[in-house]
């Protein structure tokens, strides 16, 4: 848990500085945030923050507590925040009621493959867009940016027709092909690469490295934080994606955990406790990844948001 208490202020500053290195001096001077002076004020502030925290996290608290109850206790009046008796069997039953292990496996497979492809092709393309100057480059990059602004819903029909024509609907291929080459990854990595001074790659070139060598041995190791941001954001987005699997995957054995869970509610809408246990299981991988890499999430959002 020590990573949680590390100061986010510094990370946000690092991200801001990374996005606009010329303003680094200004950003570091502005780091402060407000100082809280009086002891009384500080106690009051902590009280406010704790109340806020509880209010925001109530759905999770309720989800966790319900997952240990009997079905008929979940929606009891008055609300029972602490289960009167812990029904641990919910967590073993859920694996038997639905093929949860299979769903989790499918989600993990898709998330890993899509993340790998996105990070690899995205960072490779970003090098071309930021470190090599050639005619038509900027126009091409504009096409990338423009499609980020187009809502996905606007072109999901042609995508679907294409996949249908080549017979890839109801396979993992459709989702991998549609999601692994997103413009967002190229954009995020390019933003970061432009902050790496060209002198570094020039020096490497004089030492005899070609562009591929510079990418692999200079730029890639330098961009670890950005790579981590992109990888984590892509992984979580793919894991949580509902639309894609909902449209493309119809066979039960291909379903991801999101689709599996949704269909479980459809079939057994009164098994509240089991539904909650399944929800908790579906969140745990995300929670673990988030706790391990939370600073990269926040950096990634601050960098891509603050377009440098």
């Amino acid at each position, binding site marked *: 848990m020590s990573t949680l208490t590390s100061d986010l202020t510094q990370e946000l500053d690092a991200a801001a500085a990374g996005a606009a290195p010329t303003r680094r001096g200004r950003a570091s001077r502005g780091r402060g945030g407000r100082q809280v002076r009086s002891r009384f004020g500080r106690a009051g502030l902590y009280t406010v923050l704790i109340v806020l925290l509880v209010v*925001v996290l109530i759905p999770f608290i309720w989800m966790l507590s319900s997952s240990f109850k009997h079905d008929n206790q979940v929606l009891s009046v008055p609300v029972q925040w602490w289960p009167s008796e812990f029904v641990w069997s919910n967590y073993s039953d859920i694996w038997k009621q639905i093929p949860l292990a299979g769903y989790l496996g499918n989600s993990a497979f898709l998330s890993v493959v899509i993340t790998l492809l996105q990070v690899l092709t995205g960072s490779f393309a970003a090098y*071309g867009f930021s470190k090599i100057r050639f005619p038509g480059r900027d126009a091409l990059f504009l096409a990338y940016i423009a499609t980020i602004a187009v809502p996905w819903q606007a072109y999901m029909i042609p995508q679907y027709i294409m996949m249908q024509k080549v017979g890839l609907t109801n396979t993992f291929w459709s989702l991998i092909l549609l999601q692994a080459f997103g413009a967002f990854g190229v954009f995020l990595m390019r933003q970061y690469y432009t902050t790496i001074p060209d002198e570094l790659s020039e020096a490497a070139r004089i030492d005899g490295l070609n562009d591929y060598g510079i990418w692999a041995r200079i730029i890639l190791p330098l961009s670890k934080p950005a790579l981590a941001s992109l990888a984590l954001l892509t992984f979580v987005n793919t894991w949580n994606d509902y639309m894609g699997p909902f449209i493309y995957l119809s066979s039960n054995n291909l379903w991801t955990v999101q689709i599996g869970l949704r269909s479980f509610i459809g079939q057994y809408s009164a098994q509240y406790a089991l539904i909650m246990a399944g929800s908790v299981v579906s969140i745990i991988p995300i929670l673990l990844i988030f706790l391990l890499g939370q600073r990269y999430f926040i950096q990634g959002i601050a960098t891509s948001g603050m377009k440098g």
Partner: protein
Amino acid sequence: MTTTAERPARGGSVGKGAPARNGATQSKRMRRKAILVGWSFILPNFVGFALFTLIPVIAALVLAFMNWDSYNAPTWAGVGNFTRMLGDENFWIALQNTFLYALGHVPLTLAIALGLALLLNQKLRGIAFFRVAIFFPYITSLVAVAIVWNMLFNPTTGPVNQFLHLIGIADAPGWTASTTWALPAVIITSVWRDMGYYMVLYLAGLQAIPQEYYEAAEMDGAGRWHKFWNVTVPCLRPTTFFVLVMLSVSSFKVFDLIIVMTQGGPGRATTVLSQLIYQDGIVQGQFGYSSAISLVLFLIVLVITVFQFKLQQRRER
């Protein structure tokens, strides 16, 4: 920036002995090499991007003017799909719901995210923990979030209405079971989910404000409120602009939350444009008509973005 294309050209001009013509062909060759190397980096991503994003975007534009169901060959429809839309009650209801959703989601999320960022922009032990916890709903799976909130909103025995009864509201709303309250229920859920993300953007914006501005304002005798309006708000303008654009675009694209929480119901109370595109296009196979609806959705998003951009420019002047 020195690039492979420029370097040899410079080298050519330094080497005075080389004839001008020779230098020109050499530079042309290096230029061609730069193009080749540049494209080789971009190509692996570009093939996928062009096939699965760029071409579909262009195809959607064309499809909007065609008649095409999944059985018959496509024919030119002109503006036929758009005139059909004018008389389609489902379209108008979905359009209205989408706007109502945005009208609730955008200002609420913006205000709460800014409030949270101001509150959490303090030097305080453990403040990072609070920020991370408030950000967490944004990355939890939407299905789990929708399921929990659906139960919390249960009209008779859900914790939300139990709380409302407790504070003396006798006729608490029916939330997802009622046609009037289903949309507010969806909006509350989405605000709760998104506020952490926009809070992070605002925190980054707040921390880029130089401390000197506040010190200068203090020397002029400015109070808290005064400092907020005259330093914080103007300095946050670029962030607010970005947040507004992102929020409105995401509001008009809303789909999965609604599909999981209410499936557009009860009745058509929460049906939105994206859902209509999915329903008409992928379920019923009316590719042309649903593409026309998606073009309308795209135009709305475009107009709002351009409008906010103009507004931002005028304020900066």
